């Protein structure tokens, strides 16, 4: 009566998206096969990639803004930016998840209509109590704070000569920032920013840990690993599996960010290019 591997694949690889995409129930107890664990945990990576990808993408632009604000001479800008970075870097991500979740469930349930010109998008405030929106929100704020600190440090070490050359060429204001300061900042921050992206990807395992609920048992990879360990009482299979998946994910990030790193440093001689170093593994 045991499932074949192909049946496991069909039933569970997309199951993390919800009940409509696979078996109704998760495998339970003695019914659990190795392939179930392999594919369900693997399928859960969809959410890890979603959380990390969207948070890093949005957080990147926000972090640039916060870093510039923190670097500014205007106290109306640098004070709030510094406070924001302090709060989100100084407290555990785990507590941030709890705090924002309990805040979101207190919000009045209203729909906010956002006119987009061609259509109107209705956003319901209850969406914030789901991990896919609310959890993502917290991750974005968190990565914004950490990245902003890195970008701020890089802004401070942009070579003086480059800025003077920009002035000499008549660049000023946004053009100078866009063409000289920003590329330099990115280039300097990139090795540590790669590590930040890795940390953030690993922190996506915290999303479903007890604050935000996993509706219809659709969660990320580590959520399923914990589920299997609870079911089988055997930590020696599911945890190494999820660890393996994350090592692969980490290597993919290093590869991807390495390509960007090459492009950012293409004007330097190969020997002078900073190398990405894998220094991972810190929880927030």
């Amino acid at each position, binding site marked *: 009566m045991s499932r074949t591997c192909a049946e496991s694949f069909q039933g569970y690889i997309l199951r993390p998206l919800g009940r409509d995409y696979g078996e109704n129930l998760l495998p339970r107890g003695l019914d659990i096969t190795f392939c179930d664990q392999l594919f369900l945990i693997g399928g859960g990576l969809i959410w890890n990639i979603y959380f990390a990808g969207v948070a890093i993408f949005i957080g990147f632009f926000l972090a640039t803004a916060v870093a510039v604000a923190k670097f500014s001479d205007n106290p109306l800008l640098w004070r709030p930016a510094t406070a924001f970075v*302090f709060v989100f870097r100084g407290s555990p991500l785990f*507590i941030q998840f*709890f705090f924002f979740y309990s805040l979101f469930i207190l919000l009045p349930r209203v729909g906010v209509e956002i006119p987009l010109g061609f259509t109107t998008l209705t956003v319901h405030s209850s969406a914030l109590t789901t991990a896919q929106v609310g959890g993502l929100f917290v991750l974005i704020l968190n990565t914004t704070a950490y990245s902003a600190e890195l970008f701020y440090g890089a802004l401070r070490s942009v070579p003086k000569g480059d800025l003077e050359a920009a002035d000499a060429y008549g660049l000023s204001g946004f053009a100078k920032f866009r063409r000289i300061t920003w590329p330099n900042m990115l280039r300097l921050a990139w090795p540590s920013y790669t590590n930040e992206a890795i940390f953030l990807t690993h922190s996506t395992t915290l999303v479903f840990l007890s604050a935000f609920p996993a509706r219809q048992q659709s969660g990320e990879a580590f959520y399923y690993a914990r589920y299997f*360990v609870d079911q089988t009482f055997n930590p020696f299979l599911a945890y190494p599996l999820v660890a393996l998946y994350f090592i692969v994910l980490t290597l993919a990030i290093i590869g991807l960010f390495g390509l960007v790193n090459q492009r950012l440093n293409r004007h330097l001689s190969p020997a002078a290019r900073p190398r990405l170093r894998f220094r991972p593994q810190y929880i927030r």
Partner: protein
Amino acid sequence: MFGFCDDPSALPQWQWFACYLTSGTHLAFYWSFGVVMLLLAVVAPLALAMGMLGALALRARLAPVNLIGKGYVNLVRGVPDIVFFLFVPIALGQGIEWVLHQINCPDWDQPIRQGNDFIVCREAKMPPVGASAWARNVYGFSMAVIAFALVFGAFVANTLYGAMRAVPKAQVETAEAYGMTPGQAFRRVVLPQMWVYALPGLSNIWQILIKSTPLLFLLGIQDAVYWARELGGAKTSLYKYPHPDWRVWYFLVLLVFYLFLTWGSERIFGRLTERLSRGQATAEGERQRRRKAAP
């Protein structure tokens, strides 16, 4: 706590809060912050010791020792640490029970893993059958401490290894030229000086350690997160102190607690860096020397 707390429903607001905030469960909540500090106090020296061993293994010339060191550090650092926090206590617990089972019940004929059950004989149960709740808590806490020490030991090992290599090589060579053995040179020259190089890394790891203590909650320990969830949840009129969902306030308190902890330790580490830089061959050490020499 107070005499007037017998019937809280009839009290004016400030007295109600005075009673509410000193109820038995709230005292447990305050105590749980002590548990967090206790964990930090126990884990920090253990992780430092673990890290020292790891760093020495990384330096070792003997290939197998070196390999163990490398394996340990890279394995822990390459995998999300939350996996370790959950894996180590359960794996270690099962390992201890398995060993005890082999010792105490050699003539047990059934397999230990039956389907999804892990069955050992009565004598091999850990914590022992009939142990007090207190003993169970201590057992659970020690498991958490071991998991934390293992993970953070790997981070520390890496930092200390880097710091040992950062001590100017000329000094070690000078020591050896004076006739010290490599061991003596290490103890007398490298060990006292490496800390100033290790401090930025150690400070970083300490911050991360602080920020990972809420994960104790996942190991079933009644820490601050547990009590914040318990106490904050909405209480109906069946309870002595009925109130709506107040979890957000409890987590705000936790947030502020952790902010203070990280902010305070940042300042302490700043002071420590200044102190350790005294007389060192670094920029900060030079600056202190010049400041002192200036009239």
